[in-house]
């Protein structure tokens, strides 16, 4: 089972990962957007990191909801409301939980994906972060029986594949859509940041 301390450790690691990948995400966004995705994510997760001390001892639902509200009010751009909604919805769905099994992780991913759709109305193939979340939810659902680490390994592998599969897509949502065919050949920045978050969760659990 994943403990409340591990969820906090995940968010802390996410802040580190976003800081380390600020240039990488911004460069992806420079190719098909406005070169701010890494800056936005780093700003948001460094705010989340500041909040973590006061979240110690809280239930996982509250931790995720507070994370969502913090991202919502600090990221800006398109990804702010999207990630804000992901974590707020997940927090609502997991209200009161103090540990998470693979079933709960399914719930987390599902409510996250649904939040993205509700806010951004993306469909498969639009070249957005939805293109990572949707297949992850499917694979997660089919592997609920696995232990969290094995389960997360499957999810991360799926996310990485799905992230790379956004490259040949032509963007139909967000800023990248203005490029038309010129958006083809580049990985979607939001798909990349979503994969980083998932990998950070796996790495947290792997680290014990």
């Amino acid at each position, binding site marked *: 089972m994943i403990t409340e301390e591990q969820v906090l450790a995940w968010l802390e690691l996410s802040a580190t990962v976003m800081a380390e990948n600020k240039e990488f995400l911004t460069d992806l966004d420079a190719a098909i957007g406005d070169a701010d995705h890494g*800056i*936005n994510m780093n700003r948001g997760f460094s705010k989340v990191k500041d909040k973590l001390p006061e979240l110690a001892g809280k239930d996982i639902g509250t931790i995720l909801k507070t994370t969502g509200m913090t991202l919502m*009010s600090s*990221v*800006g*751009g*398109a990804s702010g*409301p999207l990630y804000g909604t992901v974590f707020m919805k997940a927090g609502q769905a997991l209200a009161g939980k103090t540990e998470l099994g693979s079933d709960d992780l399914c719930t987390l991913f599902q409510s996250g994906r649904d939040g993205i759709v509700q*806010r951004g109305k993306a469909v498969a193939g639009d070249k957005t972060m939805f293109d990572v979340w949707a297949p992850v939810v499917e694979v997660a659902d089919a592997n609920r029986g696995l232990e969290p680490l094995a389960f997360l390994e499957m999810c991360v592998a799926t996310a990485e594949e799905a992230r790379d599969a956004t490259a040949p897509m032509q963007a139909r*949502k967000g800023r990248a859509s203005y490029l038309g065919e010129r958006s083809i050949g580049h990985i979607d920045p939001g798909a990349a940041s979503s994969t980083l978050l998932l990998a950070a969760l796996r790495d947290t659990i792997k680290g014990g």
Partner: protein
Amino acid sequence: MKKIINDVDRVIVETLEGMAAAHPELKVNIDPHYIVRAHKGNKVAVISGGGSGHEPLHGGFVGTGMLDGACPGEMFTSPTPDQMYECAKVAESGKGVLFLVKNYTGDVMNFETAVELVAGENIAVQAILVDDDVAVKDSLYTAGRRGVGLTVLMEKIVGAAAEAGCDLDTCASLARKVNLNGRSLGMALTSCTVPAAGKPTFQLADDEMEIGIGIHGEPGIKRMPFKRADEITEILTTTILDDKGYSRTLREWDRGAGDWVEKTLVDKDFNEGDEMIVLVNSMGGTPLSELYVVYRKLAEICKGRKIKIVRSLVGPYITSLEMQGFSITLLKADAEILQYWDAPVRTPGLQLG
């Protein structure tokens, strides 16, 4: 990169502090960032916002006859819902809140979240989008036309209607009408540099220009060899005048249902005999003298097409930092639109009447 700044991370805060010092008629809040009038009116609160870097838009348009509040985001990045929510709570006076939102995915999603938060407080609220950039052809395979020059005219006209005591629904319908009757197109000679990025957003060679550039350096309609003012003006003006039938499906807030409803709206064509309000706008780095060179040709083309320019505005009103370039906005004006255009306005960025 040479810029008149102290610290890249404090540009927006220091801009706001400077505005507060220069304009005691404004109240500037730093955490979260928003600007409201020092003395709020008993009226519909008209609020806008967006990424910074387009000054005087939006903060410079807060004041009598125009906006009640503005929410500046980071440079070229949309502001966040908590800013909009706090701004609305401070600016509203029981007559409701109207958000005027430029159509960019980030702005739309953040403002939609803010609408839900404000509605959750039992405050009547609506959000109307402005999407006037004819550089974007279709709305089916893109995020739709972007909000550009028409935003300035919409804020002026709707702000005047709210000042005159119109209710929320009347102000919202007027904003929708302005949006469906206005079109813009811009061009750039140079890129611009976001302070935190430290390098130009895109590259344009010395002998090149880009048509259809939006207000952040978005990819345009085409990049072409740099031409004389008359030829550039002709390209922009005729593209705007000949644009027909743009259709899009937008979301508006249904107060009764407490949910979003989709609306399909189609732009009105421009025709011979139309009366227009015209904005010739600098992207920040193009001098007024050059804007008048453009205006001269624009007036000639309109005359030839039997289109009557009844009001004009020339200058830097919606900019892209220090970008060299300009945009043209044409708004078909009826009696209602003209009445509110002619109403007095007193803001740091615009004074008329």
